[in-house]
């Protein structure tokens, strides 16, 4: 067995062009590298598609240098579109974590637990549907702990347009709080079951 420290995580974020999928991947990678001082790579699907087309970002996180930066079997799959879900769900590891926006994705044909958040609706309520990716990042950070809270929050601040720092931080926090609440709910349920 290798030491506990050498944890490698393969993450796919998928959705439509225009949802900020690649930006979410970039923020995550920068948080990991510049904030947590670990290794990360980002490969973005790159094609002629513009707004509305299929889009994905592949992020690797590791303590060791990353040799092969392409995701083969994701540990974490974040889906913000049905087509993205359909494309990648087969590749997700059996013990992997699935995260979806349940207003946009129906997780059909699987028998596994998953985490969901209505991040697009929440971003709309905050006044900007464009911030759905930031809400999702907050949720992701709470659920997976793949990146530290402080690093993720700082990376969001570094990456968003000037003048929108406050609203984006609010979006991130909203997603993060939602994530913590979901985890707490699950814990309660689990202990409840064990006690019964």
């Amino acid at each position, binding site marked *: 067995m290798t030491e506990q420290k050498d944890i490698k995580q393969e993450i796919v974020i998928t959705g439509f062009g225009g949802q900020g999928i690649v930006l979410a991947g970039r923020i995550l*990678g920068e948080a990991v590298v510049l904030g947590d001082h670990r290794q990360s*790579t980002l490969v973005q699907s790159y094609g002629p598609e513009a707004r509305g087309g299929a889009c994905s970002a592949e992020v690797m996180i590791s303590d060791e240098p990353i040799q092969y930066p392409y995701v083969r079997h994701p540990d974490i799959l974040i889906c913000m579109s049905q087509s993205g879900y359909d494309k990648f769900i087969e590749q997700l590891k059996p013990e992997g974590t699935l995260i979806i926006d349940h207003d946009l994705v129906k997780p059909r044909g699987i028998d596994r637990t998953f985490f969901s958040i209505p991040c697009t609706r929440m971003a709309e309520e905050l006044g900007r549907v464009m911030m759905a990716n930031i809400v999702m990042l907050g949720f992701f950070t709470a659920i997976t702990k793949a990146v530290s809270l402080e690093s993720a929050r700082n990376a969001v601040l570094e990456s968003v347009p000037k003048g929108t720092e406050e609203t984006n931080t609010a979006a991130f926090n909203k997603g993060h709080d939602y994530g913590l609440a979901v985890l707490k709910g699950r814990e309660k349920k689990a202990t409840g079951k064990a006690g019964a």
Partner: protein
Amino acid sequence: MTGDVACAEGGLAAGCLFFGGYPITPATEVAERMSERLPEIGGTFIQMEDEIAAMASIVGASCAGVKSMTATSGPGFSLMMENIGLAICTETPCVVANVQRAGPSTGLPTQGAQADMMQARWGSHGHYEIIALAPSSPQEIFYQTITAFNLSEKYRLPVLVMTDEMIGHLSERVIIPDAKDIKTVSRTRPKGRKDRFKPYRPGPDGIAPMAIAGEGYNIHMTGLTHDERGYPVMTVEAQYEMMDRIMKKVRQNLDDIIETEGYRLDDAEIVIVSYGVSSRTCLAAVDEARELGIKAGFLKLITVWPFPEDLIHRLAERVKGFVTVEINLGQIHLEVERCTAGKAPAFLVGHPGGTIIPPERVIDLLKEAF
């Protein structure tokens, strides 16, 4: 940062002050970065009308004494070939980055390949020597672009940075050292009487000192075969003399130019040869092969041209075979096969382009062939 941005930063770190380009996917971000950065440091960025002119502009800028570069992809690289030949013949230092995409022709503009490797070697007409490097990460693009400038200044020839869409668009950590820790080389300048200067008379190292056009030295530059004065001379003897110089400055300095890297190569029975983005496939494949008990090692070509002929030849004496991994259907594979001289079999894991090669394909071939 992405590989494309790191390429631009490497150029700047090497002292590049002129970028002449024409935008093309997936190399546009190199030009984009240069267009932002060069004006900040007193350099010049110019978008020319096409790649033929872009290449001409960097040859001209270099003759005027400024380190210059351009960046392009397959279709633009084809257009640049004529003036790359001019830079070879006039012995003008400059750097061309080719962020390779899948061809032929327009091909898959947004998807990568490594299929311009032979074009890099032989794409311009006539016989010549060239230097081409192949980075496998954004950090390597940064350093290799600096190396490309240093070699081009030292040996007075165009140097090619043969990267690919995957590395160009890969975001990864890039550490940029302090300027004082970066070694840069500039062309040797002439001394002595300006009216007696012969622009192509080689120095003791076989390379002619280069004067800046306009500083007073006699200069004549032409793509015609020329003598030491740079004047056209249409004789076989002049051709012999000129060719001898442009060939020897590379052939007699192979040890200085060629750079390779080995990974688990010391006890390897099978040598996997690769370069650029495919190196990353091979690093993963070697580890997986070793776990299966296959004694594989990896030879990474940092310099692809000139090709490390002697190294392959020597390895062929002791190993069971070679596997070349590249995103084309057999280019560097042909070189490996040639250099083994029949002493060990050479196999190819190739791909027509558009995506990277997964390590599984290398493992499958290793199991099947050895």
